[in-house]
């Protein structure tokens, strides 16, 4: 599992985990993120059960288990949070923030020690160490109960499936060619996003944010003007195409 620090200011850090060269074939590659501030840390979309052991090893190089105080699951999918039952064994004092809609489903992954904190539909702001994090509504993108994470200080938006694309292990960290990348992302977004209305509403809200890095759960990250280029592209893209 490779770890890359994508933002650092004192003890406030964002670390991206992914591109695991030892990942077994047939499992979709995912990006996991760890945000640290002060004595607390949150793991965003900690990943699938098959990824748990390499993730744990990678994460503990940065922070001990007792300081992983928060988990976040943007939605209910197995590549997002099927590792929950194992994190539940590993973390002595953690809370899981996840859409209220999915609580009784996510509990099927096994959760005895971790406390479930249901995020209301309108979103929520939490404190982590010395910073604030916003859980921003992203319903129907693709899951009907879904949130992204915005860090106004780091100016990073963790955008879940949005901007995602299934990359191989050798992919660069950031998008290097927007034109070819848009081609690659096209099918994924058209098929996975069900609602044009939800998509436009999300774009409108993201345009109001100051975003230096947009960090999806699959594939390459977007930086600076690539973010607005992405929003313009997505705005024009019809989604929900499986219904004919």
């Amino acid at each position, binding site marked *: 599992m490779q770890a890359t620090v994508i933002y650092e200011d004192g003890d406030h850090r964002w670390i991206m985990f992914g591109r695991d060269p030892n990942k077994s074939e047939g499992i979709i590659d995912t990006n996991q993120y760890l945000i640290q501030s002060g004595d607390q840390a949150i793991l965003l979309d900690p990943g699938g059960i098959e990824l*748990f*052991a*390499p993730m*744990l*090893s990678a994460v*503990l*190089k940065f922070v*001990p*288990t007792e300081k992983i105080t928060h988990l976040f699951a943007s939605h209910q999918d197995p590549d997002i949070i099927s590792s929950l039952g*194992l994190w539940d*064994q*590993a973390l*002595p004092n953690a809370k899981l923030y996840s859409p209220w809609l999915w609580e009784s489903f996510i509990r099927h992954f096994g959760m005895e*020690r971790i406390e479930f904190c249901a995020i209301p539909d309108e979103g929520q702001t939490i404190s982590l160490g010395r910073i604030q994090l916003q859980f921003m509504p992203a319903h129907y993108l693709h899951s009907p109960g879904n949130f992204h994470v915005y860090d106004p200080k780091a100016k990073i938006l963790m955008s879940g499936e949005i901007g995602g694309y299934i990359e191989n292990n050798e992919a660069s960290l950031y998008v290097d060619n927007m034109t070819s990348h848009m081609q690659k992302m096209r099918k994924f977004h058209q098929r996975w996003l069900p609602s044009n209305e939800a998509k436009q509403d999300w774009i409108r809200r993201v345009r109001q944010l100051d975003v230096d890095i947009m960090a999806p759960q699959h594939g390459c990250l977007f930086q600076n003007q690539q973010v607005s280029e992405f929003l313009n592209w997505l705005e024009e893209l019809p989604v929900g195409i499986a219904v004919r």
Partner: protein
Amino acid sequence: MATPIFVTAASIAAELHQAMLEAKGLALTAKNARALAVRAGSKTVGFKAITHFIDELASDIIRQSQYINGVSEKLSQHAVSLWRSDTAARKFEWLESQKLPHGDSLYDAMHNCYSEREKLSLMLSRGLRELEAQLEEGDKHIRTANLIATSSKVEASSAGDFRAQLEVIAQNITTTANQIRQHLTNARRLLNQKHS
């Protein structure tokens, strides 16, 4: 709450990763010291000789830390698999106790699962023993590092104009050796704690 072995093993891997980073710093110190000793000429011949030892020691520590790191990461993976097969095995045991009409059809799956659990648990105890032996080996490196630190202090004191600079380097070696020792101690303490 007792710590699961997979957490302990991953924490040990993390300690050894830190030790490896320190050792890389030590290799850099050795390089700087050699450059300085070369410039200083005849007064620092002794110090120059020591830099070769530091260099060798640093690469030994790097190699060994990487090895232990690998062993403990593997161990952590095995412990996760063991936890999973143990969870399944306990469910099978419960099913077995239910004396179900078609219970026999589970026989193969059940026994595969039990033997998998057995195999993993053996692998785990073997791995833990190896880890212990490797950490002891690491202590030898620390003793060497302390010897080198002492001799470099002695050599620094007779280096004339370069004395101050070499003393900084000697101090650097001592500090790094202490940090590496701390990581090894932490790893050993983790290994000895209570597991679930």
